[in-house]
Every structure is written in C-alpha cells, then in structure tokens.
C-alpha cells in the first residue's frame, strides 16, 4: 500500500465528480488548443500565400482590397489595370520582372486566373518555395489549363482531361460554354495556399472566353482553331506581381507607381498589407484567445470548487490518515497530487481529443478553406500552456491543501462522521 494507491482509492470513490471535473478541464484544454491551432494555421497559410513579390500593382484601391483579391482571390476588383500601364511599368529599369494576373472567371466554384508562365518562375509561396508541378507542365497552348492541387483532387481531374471555363465567378449551368474545352496541361503540388483552389490559364485564354461570351453565340469546336489565330491581346488585367532589381527601393518605386499620371494606380507592399490585415484580424484573434483562456481558468476554478466542497465530507478521511501517521505535509501533498492528477488527466484527454479531431478535420479544412492544419504532436508553445495549466492547478490546490493542513491540526484525531 502506497500513498498513490490511497489517492487513487479516494479519487475512485468520488469518481463521478472527478470525471466531470476532468471532462470540463479536457474540453476547455481542447478548445484552447483548437483555437490556437486554427489561428496559427490561418495566419500561417495567409502569410505563406505569397513570397518573393516586392509589389502588387493594381488600379486604385485600398491595400487590403488589393491583397484580398490578388492574393486570396477574395472579392472582386473594382477597376482593372490597363495593359498599356502594365507594359509601361514593366519596362521600368527598376523593375526586374512582372507577372500579370487576370481574375473574374470560374470553373465549378473554383477561381480561374489568367496569367503567364512567368508566374511559375517568379511568384513563390511559403519559405520562398517555387510552385512545383506534380505532373505535366505550364501553359503552352491557348487552351491549356494548370490546376491547383485542391482543384484536381476535388474535381477528380487528371492530366489531359478536358474541362470548361465559364465567365463570371458564379458557376451556373447556362453560362457554361461547352464548346471551349480546355485541356489540363499540368497539375501543381499542394501548397496550402489559395493557389491550390485556383485554375491557371493564359491571359489570352481569358480574352478568348470573353470574346466567345461577348459575341453571344455558340462557337463550334472548330472555332477553337480560329480563336488561336485571332488577336487575343488583353486590354486590361486585374493586377501585376512585381519584383524589383533593388529591394531597398521598394518604397521609392511604390511612391512612383502611386503618383503615376496616366492612370490611378496602387502599389502594395505585401508585408505591409499583411501587417495591416493582422492588426484588424488580430483583435478578433485576441478576443477568441482571451475567451479560451477564460474557459481554462473557469475549469481550474471548477476543479478547486470540487476539491473544496468534498473537503468537509473528507474530514474523516484526513483524521484517519493522520491517526495512521500522515503528517499535515503528506496530506497536503496528497491533495496537491490529486489536483495534479485531475489536471494532467484533463490536459491529456483534451490534447488527445484535439489530436484525434484534427486528423479528421484537417482534410475538411484543406478542402473547404484551403487551410493547411499543421499535423504536429505538441509545439513548445502548447507545451508551455499545458504546463502552465498544471502549475496553476497545483498552485490552486495549495488553498484546499492549506485549509486541510490547518483543519487536521485543529481537529486532532477526533473522527467525525
């Protein structure tokens, strides 16, 4: 018979309230872990979305708008950028490279983005990783399409499959142009960014779609060849990703673009726009986190309440322990370890719960939101939080322990019912 056996016996005799307390704590730990993990995943996948781009140039709009529609394909641009301005600025000696993008079309709910093959060379993601092809290659033919990993997976497309692109972002049956069949020329590796949910075509293809749509008549499949011959020079684009020769001159070039005379333009430094985004999102983030912390605190309080309310019923237990030679310190240690056992059990259960659900939830999150939930066991940060919960549970148990210490001394060996 050892002390832990006594602790276990005593806990087992109160198993209902112990289990309820443990579950309360486990759920709050699970909530806390999921909130932080989701926040990190969101922040991560946002910040990973684009790299290597020094400026995003578009028609006059706010930083955030530009960031949201050009990088996250969220919302629609108000104005487009004229092809002339794009060419003008691309020729600027301070600019090393520029990649035009053109948004506005969709395929079965996924965004279609017109761009050039330069996109694959220059626009990076994550830690400056470049987009890699899981299979196939870039855009050669007018009707070539490159699929993001998520699109290919969700819609079950493979290399050389044929598909249809519709004008406008809403996928409805009657705006589909069955006669402009695109061919899958390449499929990208998954990146955990919005590119996974995107179809990439050439700028000319976007023009071709519009041309077909504007004439309002169905194009026979033979006309695809005619289109290939047609003049498909785009007149406007949504935005351009720009790389500079000298990154130290970013703000200099930004100012120059912003004060361009010919057209009202906006140049956005992605990092700056991200920071602004976080300062807005951060408030909600903090609120969520605060609520999660509060719930953890509440469940620790619930645990202390449980220990305190059972204490008066357990005076007999304490008196018997002392009559058998338990020092007040030993009794205090027993209470402390009881609290720690419950807290540890709660943390472990909560963590296991999160671990299990995140396995299941990860694929759903990736499919629905393109969020890449990190599949780790426990980060150092999380470990510290769990240790803090354990420590505060232990610290909190000092109160009942101290009370027992005093009451067992005062009660002496008088056994009460």
């Amino acid at each position, binding site marked *: 018979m050892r002390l832990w056996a006594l602790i276990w016996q005593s806990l087992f005799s109160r198993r209902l309230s112990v289990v309820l307390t443990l579950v309360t704590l486990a759920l709050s730990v699970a909530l806390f872990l999921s909130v932080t993990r989701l926040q990190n995943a969101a922040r991560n996948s946002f910040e990973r979305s684009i790299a290597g781009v020094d400026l995003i140039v578009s028609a006059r709009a706010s930083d955030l708008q530009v960031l949201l529609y050009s990088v996250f394909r969220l919302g629609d641009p108000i104005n487009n950028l004229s092809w002339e301005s794009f060419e003008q600025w691309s020729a600027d000696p301070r600019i090393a490279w520029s990649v035009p993008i053109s948004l506005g079309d969709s395929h079965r709910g996924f965004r279609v983005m017109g761009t050039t093959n330069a996109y694959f060379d220059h626009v990076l993601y994550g830690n400056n990783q470049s987009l890699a092809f899981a299979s196939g290659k870039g855009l050669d033919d007018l009707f070539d399409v490159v699929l993001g990993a998520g699109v290919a997976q969700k819609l079950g497309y493979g290399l050389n499959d044929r598909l249809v692109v519709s004008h406008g972002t809403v996928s409805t049956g009657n705006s589909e142009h069955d006669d402009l069949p695109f061919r899958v020329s390449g499929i990208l590796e998954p990146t955990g960014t919005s590119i996974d949910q995107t179809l990439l075509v050439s700028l000319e293809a976007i023009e071709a779609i519009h041309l077909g749509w504007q004439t309002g008549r169905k194009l026979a499949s033979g006309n695809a060849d005619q289109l290939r011959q047609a003049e498909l020079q785009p007149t406007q684009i949504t935005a351009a990703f720009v790389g500079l020769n000298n990154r130290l001159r970013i703000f200099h070039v930004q100012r120059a673009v912003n004060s361009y005379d010919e057209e009202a333009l906006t140049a956005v430094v992605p990092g700056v726009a991200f920071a602004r985004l976080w300062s807005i999102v951060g408030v909600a983030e903090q609120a969520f986190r605060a609520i999660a912390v509060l719930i953890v605190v509440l469940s620790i309080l619930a645990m202390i309440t449980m220990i305190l309310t059972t204490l008066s019923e357990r005076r007999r237990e304490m008196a018997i322990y002392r009559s058998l*030679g338990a020092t007040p310190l030993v009794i205090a240690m027993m209470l402390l370890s009881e609290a720690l056992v419950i807290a540890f059990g709660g943390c472990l259960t909560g963590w296991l719960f999160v671990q299990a659900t995140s396995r299941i939830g990860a694929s759903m999150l990736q499919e629905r939101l393109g969020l890449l939930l990190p599949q780790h066991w426990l980060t150092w940060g999380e470990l510290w939080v769990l240790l803090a919960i354990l420590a505060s549970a232990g610290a909190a148990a000092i109160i009942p322990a101290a009370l027992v210490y005093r009451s067992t001394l005062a009660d002496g060996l008088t056994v009460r019912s």
Partner: protein
Amino acid sequence: MIEPASAENITTDSLAPSDGGQDGAPGDSSRAPLLELTGLKFSYGAGSAFQLTVDHFAVEAGQTVLLLGESGTGKSTLLNLITGVARQQAGEIKIVGQKMRADKPAQADRLRGQHIGLIYQSLNLLPYTSVKQAVVMALAFSSLRRKRIRGPVDQEVKRLLNLLNLDATALFDRPVVALSAGQQQRVAAARALIGRPELIVADEPTSALDSKNQARFLDLVLGSLDRSSQSLLMVSHDERIAPLFDRVVRIEELTA
C-alpha cells in the same frame, strides 16, 4: 514489501537514544518502559476548567493496561496527549525512548505512525475501502511497520483477520460497509495491529457493540497481540472487563 529506509524512517529512528531499545529485548533489566509520562500538565485553555495532571505513568513492553474512569474525567484527553495530538503545558511523554512532541506536529505524526496503532470508538474505517484496503492503509504512512512484515502483505492481512475471527477469504475484498459493526471494529483492530506497532491505543473500542460482542472483541484483540513486543492501553468505564488485563489503572489514581 521490503524496501530501503525512506527519509521519514531515518529521521525518527535515528532520533532514538541508545538507551531506548526499539527491539525491546525481554530480559534487558536496564530497559526503559515502552511509554512513560512524567510531570504532565494539561488544560484546554482559558475557557475550560478541566485540568489534567499526571506525575508519573508508565507502560511496560508487552503489558496490557486498562484505564478506567467516569465520563468526562479526561481519559480521551490523556490518550490524545500520549498519541501526540493534544499538546501538554508541561511535562514529558516518551514512547520507545523518543519524546512525543505535539508542538512539532509532523514529528509527532511520524512517531505515532511508526509505533502506535489506534482504535477509536467508531468511524474507524473509510466507507469506500475494502477490508484489505482498510487494513493495509496503516502501512502507507509507516515505513517501519511496512518493513516489519515478513512475506507477502496479503498473507499477513489474512493472518490478522483470521486471528480476529474474521473469515479472511470471504471478506478480503468486501467493502467495509458490508460488515457488521462488530466486524468493522475487528477490521480496525487488524489495521492497528498490522506491522506490529509497539503500542496499541484503544479508546472505548467496544462501546458501540452489544455486550456479547464486547467480550468477544476484547478476547480476540488480546489474543492477537504479540505479547513479547506489543502493549495495549485501553480506555473504558466498564469495570467488568478488568480481569482480562495485566494491569488496571484508574484515572483518579493517576491524576491524584
């Protein structure tokens, strides 16, 4: 359950002066009594008129002593002093040669845990324990009593239960609440006896039992004592049980 001496064990045992033989070898004429009170003075403080004064009282090793007295004469108080729970204003209490100091609660607790087995009037057992758990609980707090058990603990528990006329095989894992009052008191006695503490202290252990069970309980406890090393100090107001003991002391004689 043989294990290296734990810290608690070392502190109490190393405090033992060389003259206080813990083994209490019989025949050693120079050995001190197992329990010795000298010049004891106690009162419950300003609000209470009750005063307890004991000039000298000793219990020899292996002796069974009955302490008789009317209600309210201070028998329980004296036991509280001996077991190191109440704190005397003056005088000294020595058990196995070591001073019982209630002003140092942790030290007193350890001394009690190692050398004294206690049986109360009632409510000795925790309702959620089994018979076995109730008995071995005494070993959780005393390394010395743990070490004194040769062989498997379960076997020793069964031996004691059988000695106390409890059917060990049938009752071993039964919850204590499923036992009669008399059986529960015998389980409490087994818990006091396990690990052979030198002194068994019992405060009216039979008052909750009917007269037939009282006599039986006393017979069994007295029969279960290891007479070479264990002493019994029992409090009662029932004169009829006096012949069963080696020695009968009236509290009036002590405090006079």
